């Protein structure tokens, strides 16, 4: 995952940098390791840095960034400063480029194992562009050579912005607007909510798999980028965990799916208990609807210290545990002497969950019945969502009973794969369920 953003004002008088910064802030949940923003007026201006959006792109710097077009991103991947996206291609056809997901191969390009991922992409892109007359046509034909699961936004120095998705639609991308003056493309619609118009009908719409949107000073149009794409492979994990609940992903409301997951989780695994508690933040809607269906009360079980951190996507074990421990101080009064249904969105290694269960029991919880709003994660993601090596994945190796013992719970249940597909409401063959099944769509 990564959160990508592009804003295109048709009126050149707009100063767009601040819109870019707040748009990225709305995508912060998709990546908290680094952030970058490139604006274009008369020339490219760049700003990138490590850490949160507010630190990496300071308000002072925003005042210096001119231009009515911008592209930016937030990433959960630790990279040295020079690889923080948007990547810049210098040379005769300069461009800024940012991507969510992963390009797995480039037709006709031999991957250089000596170089890192970013350098390979830049090398292939620069070689391709050198042979092209027109920058727009060049970038289009380059993207058409790329295979993988990705969404991208690119900005050419002549003021043309391109945004598109791979033909499977693994990674999300939505189009919104700021009034009538500017188009917004973003990984999620919540970015448009934050900087766009308050038209009560969501102005954001889906960019379809394989579709390319081109914005020029004189036009905004949709084109097909890949030929013959009918198969879909929408990332199911977006709905479980990655996306914000106020977003629409592929035109489907994430919140609705999260509520359905809670309902189905109750149907699949009811529990004798006194109270339902969700692990903040992602699992809260699961807990609401589990509680509603079960007739049990739902309560706030935790209070957080410090900033809202997405602990699961932190790169190191230390950072993850620190995140959980600071985020999840158990409220004694909510758990003392009670039988608890504890709901979380997913389990990767199990050690943060074990920590939570321990903290709750320490504060006097009588029983803890863990319910997980997704199936066991058993396999890596080839499309760039960070999943640890297979030998670290608890769900790949242990049964539900064993996991209950390991984390110290009285019972433990994963949402079934069927339950997940039912909650999303799409046929199984239009989803990428690779992290749960090890079966990946062919790119």
């Amino acid at each position, binding site marked *: 995952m990564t959160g990508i953003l592009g804003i295109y004002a048709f*009126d050149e008088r707009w100063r*767009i940098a601040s819109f870019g910064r707040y748009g990225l802030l709305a995508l912060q949940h998709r990546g908290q390791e680094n952030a970058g923003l490139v604006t274009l007026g008369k020339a490219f201006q760049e700003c990138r840095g490590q850490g949160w959006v507010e630190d990496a792109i300071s308000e002072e710097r925003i005042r210096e960034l001119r231009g009515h077009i911008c592209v930016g991103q937030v990433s959960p991947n630790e990279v040295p400063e020079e690889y923080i996206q948007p990547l810049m291609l210098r040379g005769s056809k300069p461009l800024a480029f940012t991507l969510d997901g992963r390009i797995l191969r480039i037709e006709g390009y031999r991957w250089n194992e000596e170089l890192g991922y970013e350098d390979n992409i830049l090398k292939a892109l620069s070689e391709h562009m050198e042979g092209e007359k027109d920058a727009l046509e060049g970038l289009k034909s380059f993207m058409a050579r790329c295979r993988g699961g990705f969404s991208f936004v690119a900005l050419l120095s002549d003021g043309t912005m391109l945004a598109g998705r791979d033909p499977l639609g693994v990674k999300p991308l939505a189009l919104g*607007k700021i009034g009538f*003056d500017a188009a917004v493309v973003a990984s999620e619609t919540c970015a448009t909510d934050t900087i766009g118009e308050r038209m009560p*009908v969501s102005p954001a719409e889906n960019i379809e798999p394989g579709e390319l949107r081109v914005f020029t000073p004189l*036009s905004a149009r949709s084109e097909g980028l890949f030929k013959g794409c009918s198969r879909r492979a929408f990332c199911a994990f977006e709905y479980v965990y990655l996306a914000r609940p106020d977003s629409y992903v592929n035109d489907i409301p994430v919140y609705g799916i999260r509520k359905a997951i809670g309902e189905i989780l109750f149907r699949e695994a009811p529990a004798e208990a006194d109270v339902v508690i969700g692990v903040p933040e992602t699992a809260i809607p699961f807990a609401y609807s589990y509680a509603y269906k079960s007739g049990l009360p739902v309560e706030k079980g935790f209070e957080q210290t410090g900033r809202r951190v997405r602990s699961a996507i932190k790169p190191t074990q230390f950072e993850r545990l620190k995140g959980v421990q600071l985020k999840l101080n158990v409220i004694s009064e909510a758990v003392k002497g009670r039988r608890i249904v504890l709901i979380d969105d997913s389990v990767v290694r199990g050690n943060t969950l074990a920590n939570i269960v321990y903290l709750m029991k320490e504060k006097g919880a009588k029983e803890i019945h863990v319910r997980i709003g997704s199936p066991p994660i058993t396999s890596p993601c080839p499309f760039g969502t960070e999943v640890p090596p297979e030998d670290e994945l608890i769900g790949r190796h242990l049964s539900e009973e064993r996991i209950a013992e390991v984390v110290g719970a009285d019972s433990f249940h994963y949402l079934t794969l069927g339950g997940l597909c039912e909650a999303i409401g799409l046929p199984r063959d239009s989803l990428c369920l690779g992290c749960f099944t090890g079966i990946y769509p062919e790119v």
Partner: protein
Amino acid sequence: MKVLLVGNAAREHAIAETLTLSQRSVRLFCIGELANPGIIRLCQKTGGEFFRGDINDPEFVAKKADSISPDFVFVGPEEPNFHGIPDTLEDRGIPCIGAKRAVAEIEMSKASMRDLQWEYRMPGRLWYKKFRSFEEAVPYIKEYAESIALKPARQAGGKGVKVIEDFQVYLQEEKRELKFDHAKTIVDFMRAYDDVEYKLLIEERVWGPEYTLQCFTDGRCVKPMPAVQDNKHSFEGDLGPESGGMGSIACGPNLKVAVDSEESILTMEEYRASVEIVERMIDAIQRKTGERYHGVVAGQMMLTSVWGPTIIEMYSRFGDPEAVNVLPILKNDLVDVCEAIIDERLNTVKLEFEDRATVVKAAAPEGYPERRDLAKGHPVFLDEEAVSRLGVRYYWASVDARPGEPPRTGGSRIAEFLGIGSSIAEASDLAEGAFAHIELKDAWRIFHRKDIGTMKTLERRIRLARLARDIYTYKARKGVLGKRLIWIPGKGLMEAG
């Protein structure tokens, strides 16, 4: 009989077509600034003639009219009204379908129109402020951070209107900067017009589905046509600069989804309320000026959460492309209607339209609407036969025909295509087919909006209407329709509206 038409856009092509379909065997004459090949053909076919010239020059138009001595003149666009063409013609005893200068004020001066609405306490009056200069507007823009529409205070072909939503305090600085910049741009550009006192209008920003209610009027009664929904923004998804209109839809009086559908953008009640607003506007301007209104009037309206049916602007003529939605399905003989207007017995006419869905889509050269310099002068190829074979009707717009040469783009829309069907979606699909048969021979790009009239767009508009309706009906129930109640800490409750 002889009829002289003034104007040369797609709207006038549709008027010309409808006039020549009359049982009264019309010889059509036309004065236009560019040679519209469609209108020229109709003139030739009926034994009339097309003249090129300045349609806003009363002397020139009157001289031509004198030489033709037509039974009446039909004025298509608004600028000739603002230049008193109907007044000049009627002074010479030539009856005219076209608003005289005094009553055309409701379109020409957006400030006067709002003044009138407030003076007569009409429903749908938006809050506004008018300014003579940029300096006058500065303190206001500085003090109030609000969502506003900045408009030139005079009708200027739809140019210069900008809506700036200003809710997010964290983006206020950038928005204020642009408000200043745009206010200045408007005042600068309005220097070209010396016929209005006020240059800049700032109005409260409203939201909701827009629609145009076109009516015939003889000054005694108002005969409404089906409501039409235009799409002003240049690019798909309502993005990009405001254009003259990229396409429009209509079905039944109240924008139904299909002929036999219960679903519609407006309720019949809202349609009737809109008609009443236009009636009151005509009544007010006649009382104010003592002049009769003969011709076409249109309310360019919006179903807002503040008022329900609300006037955004008035037209002293047909809308373009909206004319193309209604004229081809008019059951009456247009010449009969015109004569009834001239004789002020329009109340005896029962205006009828075929119960069909109509969708108009405009083809525009890239560069339109902001860079007309780039959009101009490209040779057009339209396979008229192929389009006709599809069952699509086409109306030439801003092109200039020359003998023995392909017509060249004039910088605005090239042509408008009309699909007629039993549902909006069907009519839209039909019109869409025409775009395979039009191109610019120098390979300059043509663009149009595929999304006009699709079910997806329709559903969105219906949803928007419902939201606006929920709020304005709530306000009506509470007795605060059109009112703004503001609690100012330390000052107390302020009521505006």
